[in-house]
């Protein structure tokens, strides 16, 4: 039994199987890459303000809008629960309003994702707000130190 089995396992058959497995893997990877490039726009979790402007999203359509909360734009309404702020991605800015409790990490200069819909006048009415955390982790003493996302270097803040 063993002798027969080992004769059938010659180096040629091994080679054939290796080529077969590699070919199958190459075909599968090609298929997945095609699927991913087709998904590229649909699988995005949110629009950035510039993308939203380019896509001409109709008012009332439920979308997510993600960007930075622009510095100095966060204002609290007279009733204490309504806030207004600007979401920006550097290329475009969208004014937004929200009533309710925001996550702890939601603040000016931080990333946020708003769920809701555009108004007829271009204001984004958010029904839910998520804070987006970036990939930085540092101790409290280092707060205010500037971070360069390109080089991953930090340097002291110059006001």
């Amino acid at each position, binding site marked *: 039994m063993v002798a027969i089995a080992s004769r059938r396992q010659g180096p040629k058959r091994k080679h054939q199987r290796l080529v077969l497995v590699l070919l199958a893997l190459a075909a599968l990877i090609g298929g*997945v890459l095609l699927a991913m490039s087709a998904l590229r726009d649909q699988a995005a979790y949110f629009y950035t303000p510039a993308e939203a402007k380019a896509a001409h999203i109709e008012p009332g359509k439920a979308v997510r809008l993600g960007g930075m909360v622009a510095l100095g734009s966060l204002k609290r309404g007279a009733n204490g629960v309504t806030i207004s702020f600007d979401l920006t991605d550097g290329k475009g800015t969208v004014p937004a309003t929200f009533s309710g409790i925001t996550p702890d990490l939601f603040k000016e200069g931080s990333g946020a994702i708003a769920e809701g819909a555009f108004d007829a006048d271009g204001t984004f009415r958010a029904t839910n707000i998520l804070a987006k955390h970036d990939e930085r982790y540092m*101790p409290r003493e280092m707060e205010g130190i500037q971070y360069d996302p390109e080089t991953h270097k930090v340097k002291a803040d110059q006001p």
Partner: protein
Amino acid sequence: MHALANPRRFLSIAVPVTTWFFWGGIALILLGCWAGLFVAPADYLQGESFRILYIHVPAAWLGMGGWSGLTAAAIAQLVWRHPLAAVAGRATAVPGAVFTAICLASGSIWGRPTWGTWWEWDGRMTSMLLLLFLYLGYIALGRSSADRAETGGVSRVTAIYALVGALNLPVIHYSVVWWNSLHQGRSITLTSSSIDSSMLWPLGLTVLGFTFWFVAIVLLRMRAILAENRIEARLRRMSRG
């Protein structure tokens, strides 16, 4: 590699390695967790909740690393018909699934105070959940389709399934690059890290510790499967008289 095909030779290496990796891994995990909880400073923005990182990152790494192991075992099984490869595949699937589940659960617990949500269908989270389902499928398929050679390993169909499932790995890795996602981008690349070094070194300890421990568990499970085979062979011999 074929020198290891003999179970006895494999065991002569695997038995001492299991002991060292098991206890060494536990020591590193305890040291890393202690350092992560008491030595590393709190994060400037997230405060104390960032410390879940010391479990979340090793779990994510081993969930994906486990499937990489299944893929390597599947290639060895399909191409070289290595008898231990099928056993290694079966031994890796359950620990891999458990670590993937730990990754999802710890991420969810961290997401509630940080993002303001337990779960969102963003690219990273969805592809990681898919990995868990792939593991469950592998376990079910490995159990239902019997291995003809009766080595106690998974069948060839299951190995092919592992190869197909491996395509999810690059999707998980690049999900935060390809698509706008709620999950943050990569903190650690090969050359640099945006995690401050005072918070990074305990992470190194827990990643290394959990990896050792994972390897030890896989070896233990492989040894258990091989021992079962010997019992079965002996029972068969006895029944033949």
